[in-house]
């Protein structure tokens, strides 16, 4: 174990996988000479050279397609989206090419590609640069979608994503790059995709949250401990495939659930989680599954409005209290 930042953990994962497999390369805007807009690719150009650390012009659809084409014939590209906001320009390539070629070809061609970069709310970047992007991907058959909340997960899951033979959408966060944590240095340390993790054990209520919202949920849990409410916090880590079992097991134990989400609430990830919880654990639920989500508005620039846009620790705590004091059905 070593203590490093989320950014360093990602960088180490890329380094290790590029050392391990010569078919792995990274391509995107400013990944080489500039060492990444957020410095995730620091030092990679120096170690692996311009052939494997490829700077591109601004042409998201084009260079994502280049990655997919290269993957069809056996390379393992890691495509960096400087920020995931720009992935909408490549969405057709991701949804209609990457996610479907294996199926359309009857299994002849597979697409071992990772599309990674930061997404989700950032600091005062306003509507076009600060939005939760996973919603455009986790519905799509053929894709896998990862949201790593800690430095350890960032490393273990990115390595798993790179080794996966399917297209993986790997969405990091500007707000977590500097977060520090313990990270195994063992190059064989990998966290399999599709496994949720219980971040905090509790008896009274299950809170499902990831990324920045996970940290606020944990804060809320600490605060509520003093009020005698014991909160279990589950981090899905992979949104597709979703580890439904771990979440249901927790809800069967606590009989109550709150889902927290940074993005706009209508038809977000929380909707699916609430839907399958009530499907699989209906008789175990003593209260409706509550969703605490971002406002159904674009992200405003003004600091105070921005603060009001995403769920606060207080709003999460209030929702937990509501479901706990709700009398059983």
């Amino acid at each position, binding site marked *: 174990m070593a203590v490093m930042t989320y950014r360093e953990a990602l960088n180490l994962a890329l380094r290790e996988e590029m050392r391990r497999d010569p078919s792995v*390369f990274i391509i995107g805007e400013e990944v080489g000479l500039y060492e990444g807009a957020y410095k995730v690719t620091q030092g990679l150009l120096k170690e692996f050279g311009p*052939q494997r650390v490829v700077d*591109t*012009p601004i*042409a998201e*659809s*084009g*260079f*994502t*397609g*280049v*990655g*997919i*084409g*290269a*993957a*069809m*014939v*056996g*390379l393992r590209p890691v495509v960096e989206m400087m920020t995931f906001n720009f992935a909408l320009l490549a969405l*057709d*390539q991701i949804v*209609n*090419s990457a996610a479907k*070629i*294996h*199926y*359309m*070809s*009857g*299994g*002849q*061609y*597979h697409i071992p590609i990772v599309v990674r970069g930061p997404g989700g709310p950032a600091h005062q970047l306003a509507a076009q640069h600060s939005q939760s992007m996973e919603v455009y991907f986790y519905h799509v*058959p*053929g894709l*896998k979608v990862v949201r790593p909340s800690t430095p350890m997960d960032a490393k273990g899951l990115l390595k798993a994503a790179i080794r*996966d*033979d*399917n297209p993986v959408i790997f969405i990091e966060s500007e707000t977590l790059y500097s977060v520090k944590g313990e990270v195994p240095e063992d190059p064989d340390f990998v966290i399999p995709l599709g496994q949720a993790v219980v971040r905090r054990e509790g008896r009274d209520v299950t809170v499902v949250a990831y990324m920045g919202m996970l940290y606020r949920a944990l804060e809320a849990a600490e605060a509520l401990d003093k009020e005698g409410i014991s909160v279990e916090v589950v981090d899905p880590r992979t949104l597709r495939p979703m580890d439904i079992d771990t979440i249901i097991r927790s809800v069967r134990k606590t009989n109550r659930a709150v889902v927290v989400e940074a993005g706009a609430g209508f038809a977000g990830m929380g909707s699916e989680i609430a839907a399958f919880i009530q499907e699989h654990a209906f008789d175990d639920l003593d209260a409706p599954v509550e969703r605490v989500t971002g406002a159904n508005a674009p992200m405003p620039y003004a600091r105070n409005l921005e603060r009001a846009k995403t769920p606060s620790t207080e709003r999460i705590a209030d929702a937990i209290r509501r479901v706990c004091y709700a009398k059983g059905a």
Partner: protein
Amino acid sequence: MAQRTESRRAAADGVDSALARRLLYDMVLIRRFEEKAAEAYALGKIGGFLHLYIGEEAVAVGATSVLRPDDYAIAAYREHGHCLAKGSDPRRVMAELFGRRDGLCKGKGGSMHLFDRSVNFLGGHAIVGAHLPLAAGVGFAIKYRGGDQVCVCYFGDGAVPQGEFHEAMNLSALWKLPVVWICENNRYAMGTAVERALAQTEIWKFGQAYRMPCEPVDGMDVLAVREVVGRAVARARQDGTPTLIEARTYRFRGHSMRDPAGAIYRTKEEVERERQRDPILLFRERALRAGWLTDDEVRAIEKDVNDAVDEAVAFADASPEPPVEWLMTDVYKED
């Protein structure tokens, strides 16, 4: 940068009867195959969209004739011809159109999504313009590995106004990727004539904007195509230089079987005039005149083709539907 070609003179070079036989056989195969596919569509054996390549055979056949088996080809949704030319088994192609388990793609892809790994045919893509970046990526991978293969990418005039055309041209020229870009300009994108779609209708000239070798070619002359694509392939093999080729051709049928006449946007006279330049008739005459082939050989080719196509239809008819469990297979590759 454009070198206008004198196909007539140059083409004759190096044509022997074996080559002539192959070129004629492949063009006639595609023609008969699609005529039968059209019949099967009318009978309801093929569903969805069916886009016929009839009239454009010289492009895929001429281009493929200068490729090696380890070279790659990729195309849009009007790709039966490119797939067959690259060497796919007509029986499995027909079975795919029928949506049967023995189809190239287990019946999951259909007419617009033919893929055949055994001959390096990379599909079969139905979002106009979207396969161009993929072709650049294949060129990228060839270069990455230091190989000397090339990737031939066929696309229509309708893909040129699409942003991905520009992105793919720029990236391939900027990075010197071994891709041969062949725009099959059949003058229409569905009902839209090139004059109504492009500020520059001499499509090959777009290559100049990217400082890429580029030239037009008579897409009805299989030997001219062979020559021009041959030059481009040589450049790509040598140092990765991509080329933009505009193959001027014509679609004899409607856009798809759902647009049989294709008469709203073009005149009967125009269609008749173009049919006079049927690439198969042109080459057959030429081969006979030049003595590359005899009447008997031509008849034999036509008979062989008919047998092969009948066999393909019989094979497709005999192949069962895919088992229903296959709905959920191939969604992910399990490792």
